[in-house]
């Protein structure tokens, strides 16, 4: 799979979303791009992918000219949400079953006032959990030998119950993996084709429950993903897409080959859904236009996804809750709030306005769709305020019923609050905008980010309608709307490198470590990475390693990641002080104070192995001869309680490159609508992005 094999003309990105499957085909020769959008096929997602391919073939694309295929899928996320994973057998140290029953002991996601609180059902109930004598202590020393007979008995018993996917979770396996490895071998000897997830491979990190939870989820989903990949690969090959360069999007913004070892990698796809759009922004907007600091706002029908790109890099987090379950692998840090076009507005018992969390979704959808929705939504308010053109929603595919929206808002909002229709509608808009701004503001603050100097990049159908107002609330003075906000995630799939993350915990006082010990720990991770990458078909010259360490003050509960950017391998004596100072600085940036006198502990070593892939580049928009000369429509638009302005609606195709238009103006295109408020201006850059700036 080395790069010299690259011969074909096309690179294809396929993103499967909840409602649509988007295909973006890049022609490397001309730089042009073909887009296909077809309805998703939730019961068998591969079907829509292959159907999309057929559509491309009909447009004259030859399958053997596609030499790169990158795919974003939510099959694992959906299986977890719908509880459709495999039957998993768990092997755990004898006497420690409660780790999986008690979990964090807290009602993390539950309401602490609710004495009827329940946890989601166990992935492995006690009947599928086998306890094995054997134990390693905190230093990695064996204190009870592993009972091989018990392992064998346990494996046989689980196999008899129908288990084919096994999770092995032993205490301190990140310090010594011997017991887990031996157990794995016994399983493989007894159960042909078993899928085995080892906690020392999925997540060799200290704190047993996050590690076990992540390992269990991996075991639960490994077959789901493996089956899907197999079906997809066969389908691709049947259609003549034979390139070995086939990739899957991961949560960390990188991709993995379809040939990767799913027994340890499956869980890395769980949060990949929103990652592609963020990765696409980082590359297409960040790198191409040299915009280092970006907030992304992906606002769709039911929710808004928010992420940050700082100094060109999307921010990551280490733990997330998916479907009420804890997953602890590096993922692009995307926070989701229930603020979408379908979010329902209501008046609460105290007489105040609420927007969300309930959503009318796509069905019945907003009242104005006329599909039976009766609760007013954000889209209805957008329509009443005049932001949407009832005749040109989704390019005219749906005619919106303005009077139905007005009626619903009057009845549900105006009557109980005494506000007039206009104030009610603008109130809904203000509220949803404020909720998005709050989410951005609080997340920025938690990450130590100062938003001034940031650019807001909205995508998704509703993002560009609300972006300027959200930016205004946050004192952000620039908004950039990409040229195809509706298919942006599929673009993101063509912007990613192959990326594998490795971690190993080994808690020690930082300054008591020797440089050799640190170097050896990294070498160990590098060797692991090398084995994986070579197995996936890459050669030694293809990959690069990035090192990081997790540090904390002695006894602190959480760590900060410190990248080893300023120190060169091999690790040397002076590097301790350099990194300690970077840690103090980072602690101060993030938490507002540092404790320079306190002891520092190293908690984990991290390694990221990267194989660079070529990426799509923005094509400069062709000349301006194909500009439409249309008669622009003017409509009354409500900007606030006291401001109604006759505003121009302009088709996106009618905008000239470099042209600067003063707001208010509304730009319409098939997949979105961009609202430019009165004190904002609009320009179209050479890549056909819309730039909104406050003046």
């Amino acid at each position: 799979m080395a790069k010299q094999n690259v011969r074909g003309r096309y690179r294809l990105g396929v993103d499967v979303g909840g409602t649509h499957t988007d295909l973006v085909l890049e022609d490397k020769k001309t730089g042009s791009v073909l887009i296909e959008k077809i309805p998703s096929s939730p019961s068998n997602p591969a079907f829509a992918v292959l159907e999309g391919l057929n559509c491309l073939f009909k447009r004259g694309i030859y399958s053997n000219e596609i030499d790169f295929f990158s795919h974003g899928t939510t099959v694992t996320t959906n299986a977890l949400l719908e509880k459709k994973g495999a039957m998993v057998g768990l092997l755990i140290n004898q006497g420690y079953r409660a780790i999986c029953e008690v979990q964090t002991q807290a009602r993390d996601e539950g309401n602490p006032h609710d004495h009827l609180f329940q946890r989601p059902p166990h992935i492995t109930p006690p009947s599928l959990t086998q306890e094995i004598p054997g134990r390693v202590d905190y230093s990695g020393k064996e204190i009870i030998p592993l009972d091989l007979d018990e392992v064998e008995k346990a494996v046989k018993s689980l196999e008899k119950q129908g288990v084919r996917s096994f999770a092995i979770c032993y205490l301190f396996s990140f310090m010594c993996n011997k017991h887990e490895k031996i157990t794995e071998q016994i399983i493989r000897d007894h159960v042909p084709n078993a899928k085995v997830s080892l906690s020392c491979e999925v997540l060799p990190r200290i704190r047993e429950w996050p590690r076990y939870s992540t390992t269990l989820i991996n075991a639960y989903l490994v077959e789901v993903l493996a089956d899907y990949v197999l079906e997809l690969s066969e389908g691709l090959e049947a259609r003549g897409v034979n390139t070995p360069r086939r990739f899957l999007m991961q949560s960390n913004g990188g991709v993995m080959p379809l040939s990767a070892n799913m027994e340890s990698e499956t869980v890395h796809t769980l949060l990949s859904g929103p990652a592609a759009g963020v990765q696409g922004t980082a590359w297409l907007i960040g790198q191409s236009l040299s915009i280092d600091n970006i907030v992304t706002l992906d606002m769709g029908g039911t929710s808004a996804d928010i992420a940050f790109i700082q100094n060109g890099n999307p921010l990551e987090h280490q733990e997330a809750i998916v479907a009420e379950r804890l997953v602890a692998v590096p993922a692009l840090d995307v926070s989701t709030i229930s603020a979408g076009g379908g979010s329902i507005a209501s008046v609460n018992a105290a007489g105040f306005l609420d927007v969300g969390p309930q959503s009318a979704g796509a069905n019945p959808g907003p009242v104005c769709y006329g599909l039976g929705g009766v609760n007013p939504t954000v889209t209805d308010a957008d329509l009443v305020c005049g932001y949407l053109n009832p005749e040109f929603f989704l390019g005219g595919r749906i005619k919106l019923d303005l009077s139905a929206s007005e009626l619903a808002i009057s009845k549900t909002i105006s009557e109980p609050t005494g506000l007039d229709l206009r104030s009610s509608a603008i109130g809904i808009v203000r509220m949803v905008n404020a909720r998005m701004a709050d989410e951005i503001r609080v997340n920025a603050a938690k990450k130590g980010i100062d938003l001034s100097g940031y650019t807001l990049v909205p995508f998704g159908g509703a993002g560009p309608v609300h972006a300027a107002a959200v930016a205004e609330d946050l004192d952000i003075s620039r908004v950039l709307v990409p040229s195809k906000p509706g298919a942006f995630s599929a673009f993101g799939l063509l912007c990613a490198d192959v990326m594998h993350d490795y971690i190993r915990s080994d808690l020690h006082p930082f300054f008591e470590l020797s440089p050799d010990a640190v170097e050896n720990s990294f070498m160990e991770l590098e060797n692991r990475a090398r084995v994986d990458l070579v197995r996936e078909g890459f050669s030694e010259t293809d990959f690069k390693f990035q090192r990081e360490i997790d540090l904390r003050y002695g006894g602190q509960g959480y760590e900060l990641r410190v990248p080893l950017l300023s120190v060169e391998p091999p690790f040397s004596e002076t590097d301790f002080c350099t990194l300690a100072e970077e840690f103090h600085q980072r602690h101060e940036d993030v938490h507002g104070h540092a404790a320079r006198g306190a002891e520092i502990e190293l908690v984990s070593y991290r390694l990221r192995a990267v194989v660079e892939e070529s990426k799509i580049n923005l094509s400069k928009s062709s000349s301006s001869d194909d500009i439409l000369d249309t008669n622009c429509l003017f409509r009354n638009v409500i900007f606030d309680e006291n401001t109604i302005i006759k505003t121009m609606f302009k088709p996106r195709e009618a905008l000239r490159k470099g042209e600067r238009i003063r707001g208010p103006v509304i730009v319409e295109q098939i997949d979105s609508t961009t609202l430019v408020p009165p004190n904002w201006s609009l320009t179209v850059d050479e890549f056909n992005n819309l730039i909104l700036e406050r003046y």
Partner: protein
Amino acid sequence: MKIKSASLDPVTVQILRNRIGSLTDEMHYHFFRSGYSTIVRESRDFSCVILDPKGRILVAPPMFFHSTAYKYLVQRIYQIYGIAGLQDGDVFISNHPYEGNLPHVPDMGVVMPIFQDRVLVGFSGSIAHKADLGGTIPGSTWGQATEIFQEGILYPPIRYYRSGMLNLDIERLIYANSRFPETTLGDLHGQVAAIDIGRQRLQNICEEHSSKTVLECMDAMVAAAATEFRIALGKLPEGRAEAESFLDSDGVNYSKAIRIHVSIMISNGKVIFDFSNSDLQGRGPVNIRRGLLEACCFQVLIGMMDPDLRYSDAAFDTVHIKTRTGTVVDPESPAPCSSYMKTCMTVIDMLIEAFGKFVPQRAAAYSGGSGGGLTINWTGKGRVPRGNQYEIFGSAYGGSASQDGTSGTTVHLSNIYITPIEIVETEFPCLVTRFELIAGSGGDGRFRGGLSVRRNYKLLESATIIFRGDRAQRPPKGLAGGKPGRASRFLINPNSSDEQEMPITTTVDLEAGASISIEAAGGGGYGNPMDRTRTNRRRDLEQKYV
């Protein structure tokens, strides 16, 4: 397109409420992530809030039971310093259960007035459990204390910063009176940094919306939550219900149980909780101060009526709480208060029992209560850990009218994280040798009580063990025909020839090599066991729950 609303409207109020909620969230995040002591970092026993100028809470924190204390702390600061005595940049601290209504002595409250253009617009505040603030034993939570003075050094509300200037004298005083001064001051600095974030953010909001609008919206927010409460209360049937419940003992006099009693009266859209017939205050530290009793009442009101309701300090015009001075729920100084959690758990289970009459569909049997708090003060010379080991355990919920109780969880007011075994063993010279659900510990019933947890330790160095538990003599009640949950136990050297069951509240010195076992109480069952479905019985067997 920023909309500047001069006047109060239902949109702006809600927008500001969300905004204050998210800034509270931000304060929590910062404090939690930088917390030094085990109790803060793994257990999250802390809260951060924004208060209005009257000291009323605007958005209740996740650690809900701190909510009711803040207004008393602020009132006391007003009494001492007067409104004119507050200056921009002041920070007040107090850990005093009687003067400041803090839950117990190790909980340090920190409050900072917020000024905008010289107008007081509110307070930023935080309460967090400290590693040690002096007193007879490490950790400042002695289960056998008979006076509050044994529980630690008392700091009445005092000025820690004056106009932005740290008072080093106070800091030296705290330092000199703590067994773990670095950790204690490290946490305190984190608290100050967190509430300073609250101050800055509220000032930003005032700049955007004007102080006047913010102050008006604060009033409206507090009132709105009270209105929601009134509406919910109005839906309940009128009537009277009562219940009683017992603590094993006050921790000092083991032979005498402590009775708590409530009579609840709902009429005219108001609810009266009357605790006057409860026992006199205990000699030991099971007494709870007013703030905590209020928290118990609201926990149950919200849990029974609608778990999504939000607490408001203004709801007291519809919720009345009567007590008799000198009782366990209204103690007089110097009655000790450190073991408040078991009393709160007992009060809450009792209130749920009584309230079940008004909301039968949410009725539930008794939970296992607090699984207890373990403090280990390591005294050996080999591996010397940084500080003392402190862990808090959950138990299980009781069965209810609709479902089995959840197993192995903190309940009610406690929402505390268990310290991971891998952290415990890496930092302290011990082995966790067992961590399992106790089969059969949930009371039988149509809906079974949840199973509680057993956690055993082997000590690798000598140590003083302090354990504070409850429900060993009085197991959690079953209701509506359900059986009680299994009682809790605290054992030394379990499963050996010198196994010894200790009182559930114990202080004991042990040598290296000794073991301890902690068994929390299981949840009570709800409904007649004869009515339990065969499917549920079979599952109990398959999953080794019985």
